[in-house]
């Protein structure tokens, strides 16, 4: 294989013209949904319905329907929460951090990843609320001066989660919307439908593509990227605090914050690749979401997967090195106890299989990458399961040992959250441009001022 390092691979393949890009991205919004679309929507909608029913029954009879027991008081609901928050890390990482790092390849995937972030955080938000068992009291999570002088527990990281996740959601949403404004204007200008024109006009806030507008826009985008960057890192850091500030062996360890952040990026990227593999095919976006972009994402998956592997190893080493008996027991129990099956699913999915991405051939093969990212999604769910359940199920006294099994309702609600996520994703693909038209145009062939006579620099 020979690569010419003095040339740069184009960010948009196939020498698309600017109008072709616009046409390609806007087409799904102009055409009526076909049969396949409704089939997909009904599958995800059914899952969502299943989740809603399980949730409704749980509310009616109480959360005794779930598998949570003594000593495993935190179980699948928290696992699901951490899982979805983790998925929600790719979008803002791609749009904020890769923007600050001036990675042009982010333009093709940023919009979709940001949308997935927002949907994933919505899914995540459900679980802590229902896990309290009294969701109608969720309003009290927000601290406000009241006559009873009742305050939330400010020293609890669970409360910091409320602030961290809601801030992250707000900033991600604003960031997403700011990026959409020029595209709304483009859609407004090209649509023939009166209704759509009105809607797009409202959301485009009077955008006219004037250079003054672009100036403000770029400043705002830069500032928001700056704000969003620490948020990407802080959210999962605080989620890791939920566990790590305790004194429970298996939860309390100092590497948790960066380890959780790496894991979140890992799982988020895996989910983005999972979905993009389909999206680029269905909407003919192969030239905009190119194989090069997917390969770069797979490299990030390989790197973050190894960071996660490093954390697994370090935890084991320090558990032994610390000389703390309880610590040593938890880790031996994790790998060889009753939940060994979950542990080895986690290790093989997160650390072993992604090693295939060392090879360029596999990084660029759609079937291989699809299998691996699915395994990563599974593995990352199990990682949270292993952390949560294995640390709890054998308490300090053998009389307080137990085994946790999720019930039908636990799994129904998990499936329901997938239903919600994919329903939102499917609706998104037909209602908003799935790729940022203006950003992709800016990195397309011929858009750069340095371009001269078809020669790249």
């Amino acid at each position, binding site marked *: 294989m020979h690569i010419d*390092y003095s040339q740069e691979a184009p960010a948009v393949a196939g020498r698309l013209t600017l109008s072709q890009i616009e046409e390609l991205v806007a087409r799904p919004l102009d055409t009526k949904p076909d049969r396949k679309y409704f089939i997909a929507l009904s599958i995800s909608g059914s899952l969502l319905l299943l989740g809603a029913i399980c949730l409704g029954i749980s509310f009616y009879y109480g959360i005794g329907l779930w598998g949570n027991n003594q000593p495993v008081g935190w179980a699948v609901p928290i696992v699901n929460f951490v899982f979805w928050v983790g998925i929600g890390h790719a979008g803002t990482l791609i749009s904020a951090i890769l923007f600050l790092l001036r990675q042009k390849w982010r333009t093709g995937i940023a919009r979709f990843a940001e949308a997935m972030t927002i949907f994933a955080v919505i899914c995540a938000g459900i679980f802590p609320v229902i896990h309290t068992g009294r969701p109608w009291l969720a309003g009290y999570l927000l601290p406000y001066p009241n006559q009873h002088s009742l305050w939330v527990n400010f020293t609890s990281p669970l409360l910091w989660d409320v602030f961290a996740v809601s801030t992250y959601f707000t900033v991600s949403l604003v960031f997403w919307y700011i990026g959409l404004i020029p595209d709304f204007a483009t859609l407004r200008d090209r649509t023939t439908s009166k209704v759509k024109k009105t809607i797009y006009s409202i959301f485009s806030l009077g955008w006219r593509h004037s250079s003054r507008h672009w100036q403000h826009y770029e400043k705002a985008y830069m500032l928001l990227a700056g704000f969003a960057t620490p948020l990407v890192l802080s959210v999962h850091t605080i989620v890791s605090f939920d566990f790590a500030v305790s004194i429970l062996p298996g939860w309390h360890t100092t590497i948790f914050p960066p380890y959780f952040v790496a894991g979140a990026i890992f799982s988020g990227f895996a989910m983005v690749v999972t979905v993009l593999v389909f999206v680029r095919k269905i909407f003919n976006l192969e030239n905009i979401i190119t194989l090069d972009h997917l390969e770069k994402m797979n490299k990030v998956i390989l790197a973050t997967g190894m960071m996660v592997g490093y954390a697994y190893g370090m935890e084991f080493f320090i558990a032994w090195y610390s000389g703390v008996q309880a610590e040593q027991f938890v880790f031996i129990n994790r790998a060889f106890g009753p939940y060994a099956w979950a542990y080895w699913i986690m290790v093989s999915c997160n650390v072993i299989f992604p090693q295939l991405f060392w090879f360029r051939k596999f990084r660029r093969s759609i079937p291989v990458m699809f299998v691996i990212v699915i395994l990563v999604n599974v593995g990352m769910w199990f990682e949270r399961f292993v952390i949560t359940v294995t640390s709890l199920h054998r308490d300090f006294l053998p009389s307080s040992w137990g085994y946790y099994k999720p019930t039908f309702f636990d799994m129904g609600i998990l499936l329901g959250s997938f239903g919600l996520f994919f329903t939102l994703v499917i609706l998104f693909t037909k209602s908003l441009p799935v790729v940022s038209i203006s950003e992709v145009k800016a990195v397309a062939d011929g858009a750069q*001022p340095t371009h001269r006579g078809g020669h790249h620099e």
Partner: protein
Amino acid sequence: MHQTEFNYQRKDLPAGFSKYGLIFLVAGIVLAVASFFIDQTRAAFNYLIIYMMIVSIALGSLFLIALEYVAGAEWSTPFRRIPEFFAGLLPVLFVLVIPLLFFSHDLFHWAHEEAIKEDKILQGKAPYLNISFFVIRTLVFIAIWVLFYFILQRNSRKQDTSKDQTLTTKNIRFSAAFIPIFAITITFTAVDWLMSLEPHWFSTIFGVYYFSGTVIAALAAVTLVVVVLKEKGYFNPWITDDHLYSFGALLFAFVNFWAYIAFSQFMLIWYADLPEETFWYLTRWEGSWVIFSLLLIVIHFIVPYAMLLSQPSKMDPKRLKFISVWLLFAHLFDLFWLVMPNMQPLKKGYIFSWIDLVFPILGIGIVLTVFNFISRKENLIPVGDPKLKKGINFHL
């Protein structure tokens, strides 16, 4: 846009490099030897700090080189020779480590057999913390680093004349292989030489903590040399604000990364309040150490954060020169804070000794001399690198 035509003429480094290097080296050796005669333990601890500082700069530089290859970075290609020269300190570690192995009894509590006999926890750690395994680990790690250093720099230099692009491909592969090995070796280096000074203490994030400081030290050293050489006309006129900005932005990012890791470690130990972990911080809160602990936050985070926050400050050569020196000092200060409170007579608080001032002189002497020796016959820029032209014409 105008493409800068690029003709490179090799120029010798400024004479100051070798002159001051030699002065510092000779003065440093004389003073260091003298201090070993006066207070062997204190000198050994100080020498350890300088040794780790040199490891940080050398190994961190090798990491920066590998990162450039793996990430496909272009902006840093014109300056890659600078970290290559700094990484040339790696083979010297074989020599520099000898006194430390010689004085390991002064440094490590776990190296005393009578101490292990009375201590159940240390008995448990003995399979890892014992002199022979320790020496093997140290030498094997250095050998691995030196091996990668030789491969990467040899390919890079061969390219100067051959302009062969497959050498870049080779270096990308070796860099990719190096990074996981680097992660493991730097972690256990940190555990061995810094964490095990207090053998009862443990923290899973410690390797990452040392890594964050390492990258800051190496980046600061590279930035400093780049700005100094730019001012002396070595890189003009094609080095632009955009290149400098990238250095500033990376320094800023890693200053934040260090603070994040340091805070994570402190906060979790403070919050959980387990005596087997908190005592390490409590030692650093004892007597006058409290001043050092508070100053560490100011020196290593608040000042560099404030100085690099704004966009213009990230590309101002004067500011960058100052902040590079500052950050090199900050990493030294961090190492001092990690190492010195473990010395038995200093457990209750810091007591000043002139010996603490001697060893940085030795360190500067070693780094300057080696840098000068290695760079003496080499091109200051990788003239045959295929990414060089793109790197020179780099714009944000």
